[in-house]
């Protein structure tokens, strides 16, 4: 299950999950060009660190396309703003809407890039650790589904091979024949799965499912560095959120573009935000440097 064990991902899942929720939240809520630029670059750098070119090459063209569409989509449908650039089919295209479109595109891009890292770092076992205590029955069901899916995919291949042997190939015939053969495989698999399910549940009962005092399995320990990480990241995020709500970082696009003056305090907040956004990457790099320095060069 561990796809990428970088330093940030080795923190306690609660910290990792909270970090992603809050960073994505801040990026979505406060549409400030600087906050979003920093968030975008931070997300891109961390995603690159995790999946390298091989992973990003498949994603980036689509991502760029999505961002361009998001940027163009806005001025076409949004005609607020005082600075008209030109008229397109009798509709005013305003400077404010164009700028707002690009800011929105940055938002979409950074959210999607954060989710690239999220999908790498926040594996299902970590998700179970976060929610196993809150919703035990659902988490158990979820864990079972995770085990069943690869098992069923393998079984589906076997059934499909057997069906091919009696002339019901999933990959031949017209589309309806294919769908019919696919449905037959699914139905046969269901019978097999339900038979197993009865055994599984009897086995669960025999091992004491549902008895009082049972706890959720948890492979993650809360250590000192998790507390440090939570305090540092949480503190940084708190500063950014409070400052944005208090108006230190303010961006309004309609009717006219209005940014807060570039006072030192605003730059300080941006700096804190940059540290928060780059924290996972910096943590990973620091760990690699430490690792290299410990390696004997003889």
């Amino acid at each position, binding site marked *: 299950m561990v796809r990428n064990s970088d330093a940030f991902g080795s923190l306690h899942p609660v910290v990792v999950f909270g970090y992603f929720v809050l960073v994505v939240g801040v990026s979505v809520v406060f549409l400030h060009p600087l906050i979003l630029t920093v968030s975008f670059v931070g997300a891109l750098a961390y995603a690159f660190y995790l999946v390298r070119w091989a992973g990003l090459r498949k994603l980036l063209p689509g991502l760029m396309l999505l961002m361009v569409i998001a940027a163009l989509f806005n001025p076409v449908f949004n005609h*607020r703003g005082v600075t008209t650039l030109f008229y397109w089919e009798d509709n005013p295209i305003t400077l404010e809407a164009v700028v707002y479109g690009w800011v929105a595109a940055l*938002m979409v891009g950074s*959210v999607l890039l954060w989710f690239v890292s999220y999908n790498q770092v926040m594996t299902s076992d970590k998700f179970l650790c976060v929610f196993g205590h809150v919703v*035990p*029955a*659902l988490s158990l*069901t979820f864990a079972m589904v995770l085990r069943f*899916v690869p098992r069923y995919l393998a079984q*589906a291949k076997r059934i499909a091979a057997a069906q091919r042997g009696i002339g019901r190939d999933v990959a031949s015939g017209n589309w309806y024949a294919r769908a019919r053969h696919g449905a037959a495989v699914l*139905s046969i698999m269901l019978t097999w799965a339900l038979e197993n399910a009865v055994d599984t549940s009897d086995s669960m009962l025999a091992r004491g499912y549902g008895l009082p005092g049972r706890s959720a399995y948890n492979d993650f320990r809360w250590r000192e560095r998790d507390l440090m990480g939570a305090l540092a990241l949480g503190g940084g995020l708190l500063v950014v959120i409070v400052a944005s709500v208090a108006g230190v970082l303010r961006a309004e696009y309609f009717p006219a573009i209005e940014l807060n003056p570039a006072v030192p305090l605003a730059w300080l907040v941006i700096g804190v935000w940059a540290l928060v956004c780059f924290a996972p990457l910096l943590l990973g790099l620091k760990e690699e440097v430490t690792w290299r320095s410990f390696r004997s060069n003889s």
Partner: protein
Amino acid sequence: MNPWVRLAWVLSLTGIPLVLLLGVLFPFERSYYFVAFAVILLAIVPFFAAFEGRKPAAREVVIIAVMTAIAVTGRAAFFMVPQFKPGVAVVILAGVGLGRESGFVVGALTGFVSNFIFGHGPWTPWQMFAYGLIGFLAGVFFSRGAAERNGLGRGSRSYKPWIIGYGTVATFVIYGLLVDTASVMMWASEFTWPAIFAIYLSGVPFNALHAFASAVFLTLLSTLIVEKLTRLKTRYGMFQPR
């Protein structure tokens, strides 16, 4: 009723109007985005709480996991044909065979788990709720009939056509609208009707194909799956109302 379940219902039933009211009273730039997101999350809460509060038996947990895994496998196994997937059909039949609460859980978990394969994003809660609602409504409309007739019935007394009709409409309207709304949230950073209309319109071909796929798979699978589930239920005495 379990106090936690009651708390969840209170939270959801007071929370949703409260969030909507706050959104109307204190509108800020793009507040509808957060209002909609909060409403979707709050709407999922009572269904999950009901499942937790019921303290489901081992067999029910396993059967729900099996149906979810079949739906996810279906979604993953037909990956080569976009939108032509049996996921919604399996969720509907789980709702018909196992009842509305299990229908919701199977649906919501299907949306959630399959995104570990297809990738999570801001659309995940929307997909979860859409699948869940489809499974829940299938249970509301058809599960009692399935229990009484030990299956879907035969010939003119069969209500299979109704299930197929429901599945087609539900896929197009419920799933299509909810998931396209998630795209509206992504694309249209500004709430204007033409923009929203443009996004819904661009979704129509995909949703139509998806709805067609549901109809096809419901035609092929509904009798088979519902009979298997009702047989299992009567044989082992599962999912009985308590």
